[in-house]
């Protein structure tokens, strides 16, 4: 039996559809109730819904063998996990955004507001740029508008929210998409089951692209 942590929301539903097509359905999960754990012994899977940012915690601590996590979460938290597959869904990018007329003054420390201080810190460290990181938990777009920061580093999907707030993408930090992650201990004791699932899911990904 493989325990799989799915992120609540649209991404989780999309990935479940891929898992179902790959031969890992769970009819109970499709019924509209408020349960959080669903099992299909015939397919050898047990799914549970968790908050997207908690998926890696469940997998890293072995409460789940596998999970679906965004590359942003993996880069920010550096969990000790195996990243087995790029699911090529939930595609977006981590980007630096700011006012369209923004001009970087290298004589000053750049103030960067972000939910992802590690990703932003690594990005600017790679450019040897002195920055002050301001950790926010939401409504990041407000920061440059109110003068809290010069730029933001955040997830950008369509860019519409940015545009509506008078901001634009200045630079791409890295592409982001959903990944299949595995607990290293589970991988060693359920090797065949995990490789089989990753292989079948990989075929689904190739099929969908």
């Amino acid at each position, binding site marked *: 039996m493989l325990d799989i942590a799915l992120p609540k929301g649209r991404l989780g539903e999309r990935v479940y559809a891929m898992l179902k097509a790959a031969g890992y359905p769970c009819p109970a999960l499709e019924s509209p109730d408020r349960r959080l754990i669903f099992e299909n012994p015939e397919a050898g899977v047990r799914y549970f819904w968790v908050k997207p940012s908690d998926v890696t915690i469940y997998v890293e*601590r072995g409460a789940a063998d596998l999970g679906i996590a965004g590359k942003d979460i993996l880069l920010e938290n550096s969990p000790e996990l*195996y990243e087995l597959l790029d699911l090529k869904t939930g595609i977006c990018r981590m980007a630096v955004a700011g006012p369209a007329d923004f001009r970087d003054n290298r004589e000053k420390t750049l103030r960067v507001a972000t939910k992802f201080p590690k990703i932003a810190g690594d990005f600017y460290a790679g450019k040897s740029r002195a920055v002050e990181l301001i950790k926010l938990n939401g409504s990041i777009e407000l920061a440059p508008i109110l003068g809290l920061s010069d730029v933001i580093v955040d997830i950008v999907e369509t860019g519409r929210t940015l545009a509506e707030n008078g901001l634009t993408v200045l630079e791409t930090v890295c592409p982001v998409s959903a990944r299949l992650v595995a607990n290293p201990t589970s*991988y060693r004791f359920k090797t065949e089951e995990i490789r089989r699932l990753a292989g079948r899911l990989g075929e689904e990904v190739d099929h969908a692209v």
Partner: protein
Amino acid sequence: MKNEQMESASMILTSRERLLYGLRHLYSRFGYRPFRMSKFEKYELYARNRDFLVSDRVITFYEAGGELMALKPDVTLSIVRSASYRPGRKEKFSYQETVYRPAGNARQFREIMQCGLECIGDLDSYDEYEVMRLAERSLLMTEMPCVLSFSHLGIMNCLMDALHADESERLTLRKLLAARSEHELSGMFSSKAWPEALLKDLKTLLSIAAGPSELPARLADFGWLAEDVRDELKALSILYHGQDTAAVFDFSVSGDLHYYNGLVFQGFVRGISEKVLSGGRYDRLLERMERPGSAVGFAVYFSLLEQLGNDAEEYDADVLLLYDSATPLTVLRDRVQALTDEGRSVLAQRTPGGRVRITEDLRGGAVDA
């Protein structure tokens, strides 16, 4: 009397304590002498070898004389510093120590119980084999399904040499291999225009799950692999020939190349979400500390083994003796004595409560079972 004491000692020891004594006994049978050390060291030792530590966060304090000290975050550095080199000989130490560092990605410091061994001096293939076997046997003593995943850093180095990878590319490759991230590796090979054939070899390496005795044959087709690495693996395979083993080659296993060289291994036990053992050959650490000789060893992260088994007592005691002010205390004393002589555990209380098998009521001076 001695046997009786031993028997009762084994009854009250938790499975964790039994394992700890078992490991100490195992290591001593192979000539590893217990190494005791202070809880703190000069901070300078850790500052100079920061990369070798599991975490670079250390608890520091000033000694009365003003010197900056650190609560020990690691044991190996202290042992290496104490070992004396004599040509043709080796020193073998085992330890059971508490170290102080954050566990995993946690923000809080923890007291981590760790045991293990170090073999330092003029080493050969037999020493590597012995240490690796003791690592396996340490895992097997948990009586849970276990795996000792091993690799040889020479394989990774030869592959990176074949790719002419620079320092930063080597670092990225190591990270991607450790995450078994084949899709990212493919992306990297494609962006660097590295040869497809080497990507294929790398993916093949990640798929190999062979024991030490079968490994040389599985690596035979890799033309870029240096002869000295093949020879080392061949020597290990000969020693492993015909032995039952929990050791399985795993190319994702790695170690810091500034410290480790050659054989590296990690131990996993079913039911524990992270590696419980880590070790390998670390001649480079000796070089950095300007010490002659070679070294191989491992640490068992003993605190993690708490997750195994359940030593929780079902009952607080076998018998609850209820008494009150009317109960002669000599009656209570004699009843406690009689019950404990029968080998039962006893709790004397004035009020009922707790989880007990039997309650005896001595209140009012009566003896009423």
